[in-house]
């Protein structure tokens, strides 16, 4: 069972390396970084405690939000999904990404306290 899982995973990683365009790999690296940051914040909170709660929440939500927006960007610029997003050019997707981040960070900064 574990060997088959391992073989599946290695096959998946090899195929991913081969078939994903460079642009998407950059986005994926960014997503991985955000994920690690979020996990780090969460473990810090578990270790040290939740005071002040609003600061922890704003930091954690900022990570989750950035992750989600990154995933949305990746979906929208993926050439395989072009049929679903006919009216959305990659430039428009990136502009939306920037706009969403501006709003998200404004609120996060207000909430950090």
């Amino acid at each position, binding site marked *: *069972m574990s060997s*088959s*899982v391992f073989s*599946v*995973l290695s*096959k*998946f990683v090899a*195929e*991913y390396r081969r078939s994903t365009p460079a642009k998407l790999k950059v986005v994926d690296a960014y997503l991985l970084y955000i994920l690690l940051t979020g996990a780090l914040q969460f473990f810090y909170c578990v270790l040290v405690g939740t005071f002040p*709660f*609003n600061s922890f*929440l*704003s930091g954690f*939500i*900022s990570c*989750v*939000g950035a992750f*989600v*927006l990154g*995933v*949305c*960007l990746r*979906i*929208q610029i993926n050439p395989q*999904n072009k049929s*679903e*997003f006919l*009216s*959305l050019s990659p430039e*428009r*997707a990136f*502009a*939306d*990404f920037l*706009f*969403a981040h501006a*709003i*998200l960070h404004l*609120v*996060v900064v*207000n*909430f950090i306290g």
Partner: protein
Amino acid sequence: MDGLTDSGHGHFNTKHKWRTEFSGCNYVVKNDTVANHMRVVSLSSFLLRFNYRSTHHLTSNGFYEFLNWFDERAWYPLGRIVGGTVYPGLMVTAGLIHYVLNLLHMTVHIRDVCVFLAPIFSGLTAISTFLLTRELWNQGAGLLAACFIAIVPGYISRSVAGSFDNEGIAIFALQFTYYLWVKSVKTGSVFWTIGCCLSYFYMVSAWGGYVFIINLIPLHVFVLLLMQRYSRRVYIAYSTFYIVGLVLSMQIPFVGFQPIRTSEHMAAAGVFALLQAYAFLQYLKDRLTKQEFQTLFFLGVSLAAGVVFLTVIYLTYTGKFSLSLMRYLCPPPRYAKIHIPIIASVSEHQPTTWVSFFFDLHILVCTFPAGLWFCIKNINDERVFVALYAISAVYFAGVMVRLMLTLTPVVCMLSAIAFSSVFEHYLGDDQKKDSPPTEDSSDEDDKRNSGNLIVTMLMLMLLMMFAVHCTWVTSNAYSSPSVVLASYNHDGSRNILDDFREAYYWLRQNTDEHARVMSWWDYGYQIAGMANRTTLVDNNTWNNSHIALVGKAMSSNESAAYQIMQSLDVDYVLIIFGGVIGYSGDDINKFLWMVRIAEGEHPKDIRESDYFTPQGEFRVDKAGSPTLLNCLMYKMSYYRFGEMQLDFRTPPGFDRTRNAEIGNKDIKFKHLEEAFTSEHWLVRIYKVKNEGSSRTSSFLRKARS
């Protein structure tokens, strides 16, 4: 600083319209064993006073002062943290409009802004309903929906000029948020989703009903998943909406950390997690073969289940997870009546009758199922949304009269869809072009034409009757001022009863500025706003024990009540008495609720059964229970009433509201004295005599002033 002076009021009432509290749909006859004419209290019209007072505070003192406002003149001696217990959207909107207009040198008084805010926003609601229906169906249906919501009585009740209440702007925010949500699901663009989040933020600041949005949208996504209608657009729309909406909603002080703590918000979080897992699995599925996917799927599912299980155990163990009463979403009436009398006593929390449905919606309530059926027959992502909206709104409107308001927009939209489909079918003449012109078919053509014509005429007649009904309802039920009562004489002329304002003005002019007035909580905001005196309890009803204490004072005999009043530093007591003019919303009719609420906190001292006769009747005449005939409320209502003969046909002391001659005519007070009774005996104010022992309280009062 200009308060609400009497001259201002005259100006107010001649030009502007207020909502009435006497329309049939605001009162509910309770079928108790008690009495068939028992009435309960209407909540909303008193809230306007508080909203205006807060907005005035905002414009005079600035935004941060408003957010940090601690009101010492309410809920004496506790005070009230207004900034943290109010939805600021309404006040901030009015304040902002006032600020912008004054910046442009159009000097508008804040009172005028407050009065006209609701009609402006109802216009914006009509526009957003048009946009939403156009997304759902087509432009024709959109126009019809906008016209319907512009005149429908269910919404008019909250949007007449002078109705300065949260719902006026909240329904606009609701419709606009839903429009932006439908748009973001259709396009899958993050821009529309962020717009939806900002509109949701406005809704959270405006009304507690935002919980409806944060449960309906996840429900929509969940049903789409179940219907195998998952698409990447849905993922983008919901994930972005949830996260950005979450952090935005926590910016309102009153909401605070509720979105991640209470059970009302857990559905949204659950669907978010589910969607992430589902999307990831879809991504893997696209790239792997079936067998490989199955092995990973099994591993993933068991891992996820384990994590969820451990998290739930941990949270329950540490007590962080609270299953709060979903009071406003799903109040089981029987539970509320027994355990939370305050919520059960408000007339707007009673179950809705068929009369209310028809009164507020007329023919729309009959055509709206047809529209729902059309939507379900031609299903797509956004029509699933409106179907869920309709079903949940119908359920909630059936539970509480107050929630008729959330049903009204969706009924307008679906009826518009029904009418639009019918008109399209019967007004279009494509059929004639296809069939070749022969002798027989010309007859058929004529029959078909006349058939079309008849149906169209019928539909138009229905719409005209609807318009007539709406106009009639608006002019009769929702256009009279609620503070000033009007009655009609035998010859049809109107008789104005201005007792409330007369009494509040007397309080304002003839009492000490730091005097404390005890009354039932319905009148708290009005006393604070119009008489400008400190109150003990008001319509915010946040402290049940304090209200129970006031209720106990009203239900006990005079000596016990005097002790309570001394401990609370009460100077004046204000009651409403309708026995002279037959006004049914007075304090004796509300008295049993006072007893019930007091009994909830002090079951040893107050028992509801003591106030009934041995046969179980609530009577104010000689056969009434002695506890009732000697309690403070009874004595205050009927003091000197035994000498008053209203009519030569009835004996002296005949109570017109209860239709009975009162039992205890010889009332004397030991600790109170009558201070003021208004012209038609509607409002009666008593002064609490200060005897020696209260030297400390008067000392404190001097120190405070």
